[in-house]
């Protein structure tokens, strides 16, 4: 495994008035890995994604991507640098066809049309290429939203619950898509609630609770960590 650091988060904190949504979180991520980010609802996972990608500004702390300080970058600037994300609530452009949904993200691809066809084939949506995204099933929309960011040839993708509410067939397709990209050298961090998937797919797992980074380790280590079990079973949500 390569040991080059692609993302470094240092003391990242976000406060909304009295509430601290993300509390002094620090970690590094190696290039080419698949990292899981888990934690109960409200642990601050999506907010952490927002802070890293420039959707929201942190109260304090820094973010480094490929060695450069990107803390003050906008989302657009980060996308251009190769750091992209999806959203927890699935977002597609409902009034556009599947193909158009991919072509919107064409500015950073070398041969956008060819790449779009290739990705559509990969997710087996060839027959639906001219169908409006609003008319797709929920799982198909998830697929499209992940494929969209792949159009950008990113170095790193943050996926916010890519598998939530998706049937097993679709889940396999999404995982296949992730593996395809990883072989091209893309780094992944993904938020997921399905422990089985997290354990089998991720090389390492970050655990958050109440805005803090609780622990980090291999699936086996995390599985046996008492604090993790407590964080999950201590809350109402597993």
């Amino acid at each position, binding site marked *: 495994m390569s040991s080059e650091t692609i993302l470094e988060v240092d003391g990242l904190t976000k406060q909304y008035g009295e509430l601290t*949504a993300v509390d002094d979180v620090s970690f590094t991520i190696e290039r080419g890995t698949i990292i899981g980010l888990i934690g109960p609802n*409200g642990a601050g*996972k*999506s*907010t952490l994604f*927002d802070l890293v990608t420039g*959707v*929201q500004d942190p109260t304090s702390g820094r973010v480094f991507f490929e060695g450069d300080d990107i803390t003050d970058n906008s989302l657009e600037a980060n996308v251009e640098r190769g750091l992209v994300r999806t*959203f*927890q609530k699935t977002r597609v452009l409902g009034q556009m066809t599947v193909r158009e949904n991919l072509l919107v993200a064409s500015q950073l691809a070398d041969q956008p049309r060819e790449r779009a066809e290739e990705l559509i084939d990969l997710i087996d949506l060839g027959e639906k290429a001219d169908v409006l995204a609003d008319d797709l099933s929920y799982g198909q929309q998830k697929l499209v939203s992940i494929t969209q960011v792949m159009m950008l040839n990113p170095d790193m993708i943050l996926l916010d619950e890519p598998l939530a509410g998706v049937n097993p067939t679709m889940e396999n397709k999404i995982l296949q898509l992730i593996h395809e990209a990883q072989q091209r050298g893309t780094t992944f961090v993904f938020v997921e609630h399905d422990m089985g998937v997290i354990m089998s797919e991720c090389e390492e797992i970050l655990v958050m609770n109440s805005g803090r980074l609780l622990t980090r380790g291999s699936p086996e280590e995390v599985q046996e960590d008492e604090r993790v079990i407590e964080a999950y079973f201590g809350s109402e949500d597993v």
Partner: protein
Amino acid sequence: MAILDILAELVVIGVFLGAFYGLIALGLSLVFGVQNVINLAHGEFLMIGAYITFFGWSIFDLNPLLSIVISVPIMFVVGAAIQGGLLERIDLDNELTTLIFTFGLALAIRGLAQYAINVDYQSISFLTESVDVGFTAFSLNRPFAFGIAVISTLLFFAFLKYTDWGKAIRATSQNPEIARACGIRTKRVRMVTFGLGAALAGIAGGIAGILYTIFPAMGLDYLLKAFVIVVLGGLGSLVGAVVAGVGFGVIETFGTWYTSSTMASIIAFVVLILVLLVRPQGLFGRSDSGE
């Protein structure tokens, strides 16, 4: 005249004016807070209120105070009917759709008034006697208007705080989904809210009729000022609207004293741009993502 006298005069007139502006902004902010609709016909509701008071005075010889009281239920019904009959039929979640719709509504009401009334400028001469308070003199209708604005504002806040409908409105404003889950019928709440917004505009219209000239296209100016105030105070914040209204009244009074009264609308625009520049997300931030 000593500089302090001028200062005191401008502050007093500014506060008088500001309470009236706050009242206009209150209705606009209320409707925004509960249903995320910026009602561009708010100025036209104000215009209707002004004409109710004017015709009450000119045709039936009614005291404007009485006309203002009468205009409250009328405007409430008008507002509730527009919400129930028209706005409920469009996509209320789409901010731009509602904005365009209320723009059309404003044009329709204004056009109808221009067609039906067909006279350019009218005014109510009521309490025009001047009163000297030492450092300045003003006509009696100004403190009268101030009194109505303050009393209406206080009654409105009391309604919100102590009645069941008021509580339902506040709950819906804070979280529509939870309010629905608690059994609050949000369509009814929206109708009452829009009715109240129209009634507040109606009262403000009566005041505008006493203080200024009345004409069918008068609403736009008040709408724009109210919008600036609502942004200043934080969209959806009711107390903010009242406080910012008073602040804006003082700013405008000083501004027009320095320049000229035709500059008032330009001042409003400049204030708006400055506020938006200093707080780009408005004074209320909205996050699109998050858990």
